[in-house]
């Protein structure tokens, strides 16, 4: 559960008071309106110029940032692929968090769920953009430490059909595992279809608010 109080990021956006407690929250707005910047604040990669952000009633500045990011994991707009195989890429989050890697079977099921029909032991750099995006999604979905997923345009590199399938699966998965999902998308229809709450970012408004769908 996030609560945003009087937050401002110099010359990008401002937000008076927004609570994010729904299961699925969509963040929409034109490009450049500050969607990615907002997600970065929730992951504590950036600090607002003004105001406070609370996660489960604790101010982000008082939470160990590493512990926070192990619970509130983020997939950036451009997926990051690390050196090594698909397997290496899927378990690297577990390594960072000091957790035991999942069984191969679990990894294969995740690939299947995301329609990524690839061998676990091929080099991840061989994947296409869309495949890399799904690999990056699978990696965070597998993390046991996660309580919240922050996804920045998770389907930007996918064709419409794959996007719909993958997003549907990601949302089902989050619900079944009782994880909160905060997702940036430029596709308003998509957001309305899946989200319990929408946060609309606007380049010209410094008073962004959330609304129930």
């Amino acid at each position, binding site marked *: 559960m996030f609560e945003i109080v009087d937050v401002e*990021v*110099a010359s*990008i956006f401002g937000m008076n008071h927004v609570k994010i407690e729904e299961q699925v929250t969509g963040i929409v707005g034109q490009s450049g309106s500050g969607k990615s*910047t907002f997600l*970065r604040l929730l*992951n*504590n*990669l*950036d*600090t*607002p*110029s003004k105001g406070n952000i609370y996660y489960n009633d604790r101010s982000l*500045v008082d939470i160990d*940032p*590493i*512990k926070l*990011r*192990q*619970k509130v*994991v*983020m*997939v*950036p707009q*451009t997926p*990051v692929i*690390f*050196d090594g195989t698909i397997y290496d890429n899927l378990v*690297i*989050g577990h*390594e*960072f*968090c000091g957790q035991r890697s999942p069984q191969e079977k679990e990894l294969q099921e995740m690939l299947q769920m995301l329609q990524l029909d690839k061998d676990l032991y091929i080099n991840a750099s061989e994947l296409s953009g869309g495949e890399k995006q799904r690999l990056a999604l699978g*990696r*965070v979905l597998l*993390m046991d*430490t996660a309580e919240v997923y922050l996804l920045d345009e998770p389907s930007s590199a996918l064709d419409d059909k794959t996007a719909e399938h993958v997003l549907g699966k990601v949302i089902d998965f989050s619900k079944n595992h009782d994880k909160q999902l905060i997702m940036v998308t430029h596709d308003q229809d998509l957001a309305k279809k899946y989200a319990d709450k929408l946060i609309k970012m606007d380049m010209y408004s410094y008073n962004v608010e959330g609304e129930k769908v």
Partner: protein
Amino acid sequence: MAGCFRYLFILVVLAIVHIKKIPRKKLIIISTLRMTLQLILVGYILIYIFDHPHPLLTVGIILFMLGFAIFNVYQRTKATIQLPLKKMIALAMVIGISISLTYMMLIVLQLDPWYDPRIFIPIGGMIIGKTMTGVALGVNNLIHGMRDQKDKVEGALMLGASPKQAAKSIINEAFDSAMLPTINAMVGMGIVFLPGMMTGQIIAGQQPVTAVKYQIAVMLGVAGTVSITVLIFLHLAYKSFFNEQKQFLLSKRNPSKGDKPVEFH
């Protein structure tokens, strides 16, 4: 008179540069003069020191070389580096080189007296020189690695990595690149080239076996010193790319008040 023949080499170089119209004539003349003057000066200083050995003189000369080496690393770094990084370079070189030289002179070579300038100064100089090259490579590769692999570093943070985990592959690559010249020198030693020190000793009439013994000690000393110093530097320096909130400074969009600048282009 015969001494003048050696400068014939430089005339050949100048002739080639002139014919090829390479704009380096002035630089070549100046560096030839500088080298000659510097070496003559050093020769006289060494004669004085060898005739009047004193612990303070040995230590003083070593410190002078160390200071020069640190300054040289600053100059060789292509990015303009900021004060925190400069301090780390200096600190790592002072610690790494002090430890290594102490070990080298007292335990490996067992100098008697410990400040014996005939051995301490030239061997110390060689080790400092090679360490300087290694650290400069380490600094450059750390900065470039962080800059070129920004997204990977931050991508690791997003998955809950500590700054150390996030920077690990960059630290390792920087370390490798700093060690590579030393490793190559060890592999090629004696086959591709005879090292300057050994050549000098042999010319001066030493038994090749004695020269070889010293050379092995020096090479191992160089490898050890470069690795310790670069390792200390990298483990201090990667931290300066992150702030207290473990945010990666090169990727931030909204700099916080306390963020120290790391480097500029």
